[in-house]
């Protein structure tokens, strides 16, 4: 029996990393919000690797935090190891990565949802979304509860009509043995939404007591621990170790001999898998000249002995998996707790979305996370946050919040998938960001807190603190640029001690700081007036001054970029009527409806010549 169950402003379907951020954002912005999960045991689950962050993904977490999202805070509370990656490679690419206690991470996030005002959390499968006059109206659960809603955020992750594969065995199932959402796929198709089929996979978990760690390299966390959230202060905690081991020729032979039993190679799996997350059989086939591949052994949590084996995801049959894992040093006697599997699932084509993450042709229907063709917890979470914010903006009748490629990695990610689309699960990478010297993880708050505050997700208290930090940084930079040190004995002795050339005339402190050998902290020796700054503030001063010239250069490039982004294309433009645009260009432009010339120029199939014609057209029209 169907029954009317209530009315909400925002309904979030799915409580993974995207869903949680979306629901929290909406509720925190005062909307009556509801979040569904097929199983409440699966809230904020990490069905694959048990870590948050990593190169460029760490940036995303910082940006989420700066906007008032939850992920950074949640991992700060539940991490069991932390590392700053790429410290030797320059400030732009420093990135945090933390091993999570997976169960604790989930419990913490679930509890946060439960405690959140304006937010109801329910275990239910949504089977139908009703749309009237092109507008979202209500949703229905499998048991027949009907909720009237103003907006819906779909964040179903890999659950849509998902199938898992372990060799010849296959089963309709979501990740980690949770039910798939079968009916929702059909509902979406009935709404005229085009679905794609993507594939991903995860390696086996192994019981710790069957691993010989003495044959592996230990990988320790950092001694100096840095939190993800700009608000948190991390106390030193006992970190757990990860381990590194390698495959060998024996491993590869087993794989080659059994390829005919992999659904990837027999053609059973048709979904598109990510190139950056290949299964071990993929790696062995595609990179046959490599004598070994890495395998990282990572703890899944403190109250479990399950270990995650990064690098060895596979869709081979279980017996082959066991055999191949056991050829690896340290894993000779490994006992699986869970086998590796591949998973295929439905997702939408992100080209059908606006930059606000709302579906182009259905009012009030938003999409976030893996359903948009992305991959990764952090990628999902940041979309959830933006979709949550924009669902609220929509209800309030305000303009959507759109971050562009110069605002942050979030902007790059959304612009990429919405403008260029993706034909494989999309992963964030620093190489995707054009202005990465500006989009650093250390300055995410300087870039985005203002926006988070305007939206309403940053509290007044935090904002005041932020303004204070900003002021301290600016003033200190000003001071260093003004303060001149003379070539005194003390100064030159200091410089020589640091391994750099002594002064012959006076120099500004800011200039000294530009020398590679000099750090901000070391300047204290010759700078009596150095104020007491926080770690974050010191870091910021140092980076902004040390790389000033390079930063300015990118700022120039950003100006150029913004120019094209500011050339808006009227919504009612009829590309068919513009002679001179190529046929493919017309089709793509009509379909994607880019907001600006800048966005139009990034659409594949739209040539520079098409853009020139468009520019000429707009110019003559404006005359």
């Amino acid at each position, binding site marked *: 029996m169907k029954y009317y169950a209530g009315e909400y402003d925002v309904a979030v379907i799915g409580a993974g990393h995207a869903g949680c951020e979306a629901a929290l954002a909406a509720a925190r912005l005062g909307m009556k919000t509801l979040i569904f999960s097929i199983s409440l045991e699966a809230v904020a689950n990490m069905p*694959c*690797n048990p870590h948050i962050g*990593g*190169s*460029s993904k760490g940036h995303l977490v910082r940006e989420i935090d700066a906007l008032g999202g939850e992920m950074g805070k949640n991992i700060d509370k539940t991490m069991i190891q932390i590392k700053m*990656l*790429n410290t*030797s*490679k*320059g*400030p*732009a*690419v420093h*990135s945090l990565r933390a091993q999570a206690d997976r169960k604790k991470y989930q419990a913490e996030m679930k509890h946060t949802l439960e405690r959140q005002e304006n937010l109801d959390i329910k275990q239910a499968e949504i089977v139908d979304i009703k749309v009237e006059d092109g507008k979202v109206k209500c949703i229905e659960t499998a048991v027949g509860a009907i909720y009237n809603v103003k907006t819906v955020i779909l964040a179903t992750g890999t659950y849509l009509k998902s199938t898992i594969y372990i060799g010849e065995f296959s089963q309709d199932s979501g990740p980690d043995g949770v039910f798939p959402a079968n009916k929702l796929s059909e509902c979406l198709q009935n709404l005229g939404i085009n679905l794609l089929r993507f594939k991903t*996979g*995860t*390696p086996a978990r192994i019981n710790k007591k069957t691993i010989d760690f003495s044959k592996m390299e230990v990988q320790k966390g950092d001694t100096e621990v840095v939190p993800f959230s700009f608000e948190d202060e991390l106390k030193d905690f006992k970190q757990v170790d990860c381990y590194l081991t390698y495959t060998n020729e024996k491993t590869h032979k087993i794989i080659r001999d059994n390829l005919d039993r992999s659904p990837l190679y027999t053609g059973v799996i048709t979904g598109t898998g*990510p*190139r*950056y*997350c*290949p*299964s071990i059989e*993929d*790696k062995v086939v*595609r*990179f046959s000249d*490599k004598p070994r*591949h*890495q395998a*990282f052994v990572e703890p899944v949590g403190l109250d479990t002995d399950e270990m995650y084996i*990064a*690098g060895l*995801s596979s869709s081979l049959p279980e017996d082959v998996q066991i055999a191949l894992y056991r050829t690896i040093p340290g894993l000779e006697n490994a006992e699986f707790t869970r086998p590796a599997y591949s998973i295929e699932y439905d997702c939408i084509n992100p080209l059908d979305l606006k930059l606000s993450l709302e579906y182009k042709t259905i009012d009030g229907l938003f999409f976030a996370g893996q359903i948009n063709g992305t991959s990764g917890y952090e990628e999902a979470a940041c979309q959830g946050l933006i979709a949550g914010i924009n669902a609220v903006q929509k209800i309030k009748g305000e303009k959507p919040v759109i971050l562009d490629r110069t605002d942050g990695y979030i902007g790059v990610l959304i612009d990429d998938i919405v403008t260029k689309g993706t034909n494989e699960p999309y992963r964030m*990478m*620093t*190489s*995707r960001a*054009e202005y*990465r*010297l500006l989009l650093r993880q250390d300055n995410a708050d300087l870039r985005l807190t203002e926006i988070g505050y305007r939206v309403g997700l940053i509290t007044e208290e935090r904002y005041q603190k932020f303004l204070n930090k900003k002021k301290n940084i600016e003033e200190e930079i000003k001071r260093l640029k003004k303060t001149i040190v003379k070539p005194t004995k003390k100064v030159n002795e200091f410089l020589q001690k640091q391994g750099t050339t002594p002064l012959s005339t006076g120099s500004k402190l800011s200039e000294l700081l530009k020398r*590679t050998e000099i750090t901000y902290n070391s300047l204290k020796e010759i700078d009596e007036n150095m104020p007491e700054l926080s770690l974050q503030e010191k870091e910021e001063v140092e980076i902004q001054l040390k*790389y000033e010239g*390079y930063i300015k250069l*990118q700022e120039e490039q950003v100006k150029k970029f913004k120019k094209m982004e500011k050339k808006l294309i009227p919504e009612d433009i009829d590309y068919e009527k513009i*002679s*001179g*645009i*190529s046929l493919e260009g017309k089709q793509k432009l009509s379909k994607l409806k880019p907001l600006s010339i800048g966005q139009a120029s*990034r659409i594949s199939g739209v*040539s*520079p*010549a098409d853009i*020139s*014609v468009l520019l*000429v057209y707009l110019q003559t029209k404006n005359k």
Partner: protein
Amino acid sequence: MSTIASISTAPGIGGIGIIRMSGKKSFEILEKIFKPKKQEKIEDIKGYTIKYGHIVEEDKIIDEVLVSYFKAPKSYTAEDMCEINSHGGNLIVKKILELCLKNGAELAEPGEFTKRAFLNGRIDLAQAESVVDVINAKSEKEVKASIKQLEGELSKEIQKIKQEILDVLVNIEVSIDYPEYDVEEVQNKEILEMLESVENKLKKLEKTFDSGKILKNGIKTAIIGKPNAGKSSLLNAILKEDRAIVTEYEGTTRDTIEEFVTINGIPLKLIDTAGIREASDEVEKIGIQKAKEIAKEADLVIAIFDISKKLSKEDEEILKIVKNKKSIILLNKIDLKQAISEKDPKFLESSKNIIKISALNKKGIEEIYNKISEMFSLNEINMDNDIVITNVRHKNLISKAIKNVLKTKETMKKDMPIDIIAIYIKDILEDLGSITGEIITEDIINEIFSKFCLGK
């Protein structure tokens, strides 16, 4: 859009002149000025046909011409078009154009035909650029260069250089994006070697632009010398050569006549030829001043001296002008008795290129051509193998790329971290990508995935 007309043969080369019209009223205007031998209604004339007849003005025959008809959309601009082929000289061709304009056509702006072709969707931007180059090309070598670019030779070369950069960059990027994986860290030496190699290749390309520009615009040449030294004999010797193709037109910078002459593929643009011809035997009072002026705008100064007379004060003034320019000193009248030596330090100090000639007897003239060829590296440009940059946009992008190569090196010297170095390397790629119109980020990511095996 209006109907436009212009002379589409570049001044300087060719015996015939073509006047082109494009636009809705092309045929209407044509009917008023063209009397074909066989009268036909315009509707009955098919596109791509040529008709013979006369251009007339108030029944007076102006020229005997062939007219090609192109009907929209099957024409270069995708509009109704016609081309009037006249064999008249500059004056006749100009006259026909005037008639077109008088009867309702508008004078086309430079490149407007191509712009229309582009706007009407006939050609893309890169093609448009090359076509404009072909149209503007003045000598055979340059046409060949333009056609090569049209065919994508330049794109191929740029592609090769890009790949070289990409090979290194992708190694850097992968070590940043996958710090956990055991990809080998890129060594500075490897980056420097790549930069060296790229810089050399780009510089070579950049250098061809100067030759390319010369091919396109001609070597602006000033012939100076005091009255009676033999300027006008020299001019005659050059212009009256059987091989010479000569066109005269108005000077670009000053109110003078310039003559464009191509000999042995060497395009010379002679400045102020009228001035030389008009100069009488009387001593010009303004002579030196004028010589200074024309030398100033010249790529090449040819100073001519009478070897049978001692150097005068004026001669010495002329030598001063020559000193700071690319120059050739001609010692004329070798058939007379020599009064000065070619080894006179005054000559040697002023120019490296000294040639003895007899302009009147056309002795030593060939040597001048060879010298010019050598001075402007025209022989080094082998059109059949090498790519020559003739497009200013391409040249600017290549220069910018070179600048970024140098900046990258500087950044490395300062021990900057790899991500900053990578930013500059990316900039080099962006510059080169703009030449061929490709998106760089995609390239890098595709390379990362095709070359490295990474993942969970």
